[in-house]
């Protein structure tokens, strides 16, 4: 529908959604605790967190289904804190899809156009265009009860997008789909967002989904934003242990930060020995004392032959093997008091898969470590 020449210009300097000191309680339970956030125009933004962290409530306050107890909600530069949902330039794709069961596909998609009082044939033309955009050609007359989950999802998307919203809100839209369909929809949503240039705000508890789709992610715990950043920042440089273990798998090794030594940060661990980190790998305000080091499973390597070398290595016994086909996950015992750590290895031609009890050499590099 929208060619590259008509796609809206993405300008991340203009906040499309601006939340200032938002607080929201239900009865005595405060679910959003003084939260500030700016979402740029044309951004694919994700609110990521476990259930009960307040992410859905936050989305519903942007949509106009909930009013904050205090704070300001602005959309496209206009204050809309107390506006009803039908007065806001936002549209929502609901977790349950909320397809009107008494209407067919065409009527569902055309629902919001009614107040525009378009001529019948123009209305139909618009609906057909939109159905084409979401790959639902030919389903115009299909009754809504005869739709599959994936098709309902697309109808919900078409029904929202036909309103030409400034912000599209997606509340866990893919959680009810099976894995294959979910992956396909992730790419399609991303493609649609790039084509249309509309700001998308996605709520999800699935960290992988957030990493794949988003320009930026806000990780939320307990009514507050724990970390805000690009997917790579969030994954590679988590700021707290909680964020680190919520996003993917993270191995933790305890150590003691002894201070700077030759421009590097010196950490002594019983499992990995002396570790030297660059300043960027650690929060700048960290004081000497106990510290936790985080290592991603893919940043450790099983050294298969004597010719394989690594910056550092240690010997360890394998305690568990999980074979995934393309990958093998090993758990290995640490020499120190730390918990077993997990290592992922890609299975390539001729590469041996070890068994529980085997003793292997594990290689690691200080550059991939993050201190928390």
């Amino acid at each position, binding site marked *: 529908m929208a060619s590259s020449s008509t796609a809206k210009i993405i300008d991340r300097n203009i906040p499309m959604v601006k939340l200032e000191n938002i607080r929201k309680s239900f009865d005595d339970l405060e679910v959003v605790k003084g939260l500030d956030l700016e979402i740029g125009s044309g951004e694919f933004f994700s609110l990521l967190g476990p259930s009960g962290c307040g992410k859905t409530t936050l989305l519903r306050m942007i949509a106009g289904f909930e009013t904050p107890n205090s704070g300001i909600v602005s959309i496209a530069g206009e204050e809309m804190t107390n506006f009803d949902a039908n007065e806001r330039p*936002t*549209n929502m794709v*609901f977790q*349950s899809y*909320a397809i009107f*069961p*008494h209407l067919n596909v065409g009527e569902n998609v055309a629902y919001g156009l009614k*107040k525009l009082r378009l001529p019948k044939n123009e209305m139909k033309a618009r609906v057909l265009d939109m159905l084409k955009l979401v790959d639902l050609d030919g389903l115009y007359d299909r009754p809504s*009860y005869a739709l599959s989950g994936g098709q309902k999802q697309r109808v919900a998307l078409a029904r929202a997008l036909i309103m030409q919203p400034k912000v599209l809100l997606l509340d866990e839209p893919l959680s009810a789909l099976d894995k294959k369909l979910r992956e396909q929809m992730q790419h399609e949503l991303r493609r649609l967002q790039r084509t249309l240039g509309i700001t998308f705000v996605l709520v999800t508890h699935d960290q992988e989904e957030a990493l794949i789709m988003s320009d930026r992610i806000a990780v939320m715990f307990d009514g507050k934003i724990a970390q805000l950043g690009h997917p790579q920042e969030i994954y590679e440089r988590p700021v707290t242990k909680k964020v680190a273990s919520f996003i993917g798998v993270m191995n933790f090794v305890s150590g003691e930060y002894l201070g700077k030594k030759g421009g590097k940060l010196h950490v002594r661990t019983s499992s990995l020995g002396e570790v030297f980190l660059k300043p960027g790998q650690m929060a700048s305000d960290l004081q000497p004392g106990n510290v936790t080091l985080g290592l991603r499973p893919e940043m450790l390597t099983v050294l298969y032959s004597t010719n394989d070398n690594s910056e550092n290595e240690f010997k360890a016994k394998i305690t568990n093997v999980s074979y995934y086909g393309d990958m093998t996950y090993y758990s290995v015992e640490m020499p120190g008091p730390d918990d077993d750590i997990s290592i992922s290895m890609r299975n390539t031609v001729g590469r041996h898969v070890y068994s529980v009890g085997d003793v292997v050499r594990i290689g690691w590099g200080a550059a991939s470590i993050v201190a928390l």
Partner: protein
Amino acid sequence: MKTNSRPLLFFLIIYLGFLYAPVVLLPLFAFNDSAIIAFPLSGFTTDWFSWLMEDESLFGALKNSVLIAVTASFISTIFGVLTARAMARHRFMGKQSMFGLIMAPLFLPEIIVGVSILIVLMQLGLALSLWTVIAGHVLLATPFSVSILTTAFNNLDRSLEEASLDLGENRIGTFFRVILPLVTPGLISSLLIGFTISLDEFVIAFFLTGTDPTLPVYIWSLLRFPSKLPVVMALGFILLVVSLVLLGIFEFYRRRSEALTSGKENSGI
């Protein structure tokens, strides 16, 4: 399971026989060629139905009853919609006790209700009329309407309403374009049950009827004349057939709308 099924089957037959044997007697005696309601049957006749057609006061009573039943079921359904909506969507002080008070007439003896209303009407100096019967019947039917419609409104997915608001529709438009179509089966149930309750209600109607009797009151008055008993049987037979047809129509629509809203593709339309 199998060893226990024989006594259960026996129980089922007794139970169904007890329930439906009297109903089977209706058509038997409605077409029986004798003024005495007793076996053996003496012959086939349709005379009782012709008598029925000529009885003008009976038609008057039928007309009153239908008028009362239609009006009472509409009013109780409107009350039901308002109450159910409030119950399903709003939280307010005394909600549970208010709900209890609305449902209470279900458990009050009708004779007490009838006498009480009569006393109140007398005190107010109001004449008994069709409207006084309607008022009594609304009181009886409202708890049924409320309980049916509360279920219907509770089953309504709230996100459907939100989706409508989100797509720019206002609250009134949302009510007519989304909520009303989806609770229609509940509305039909409520109207139908209100109609049925009112149509065969005797005690309250007996107390509150003025000069125009309802059908049950009229039938009761017929019972004083044994020779009229077969006519009552004929009338009962007609009412039975009409109820079965109504029930069939209702069930057809109920299943259709259930298939529409349940989201299943093959739920037997």
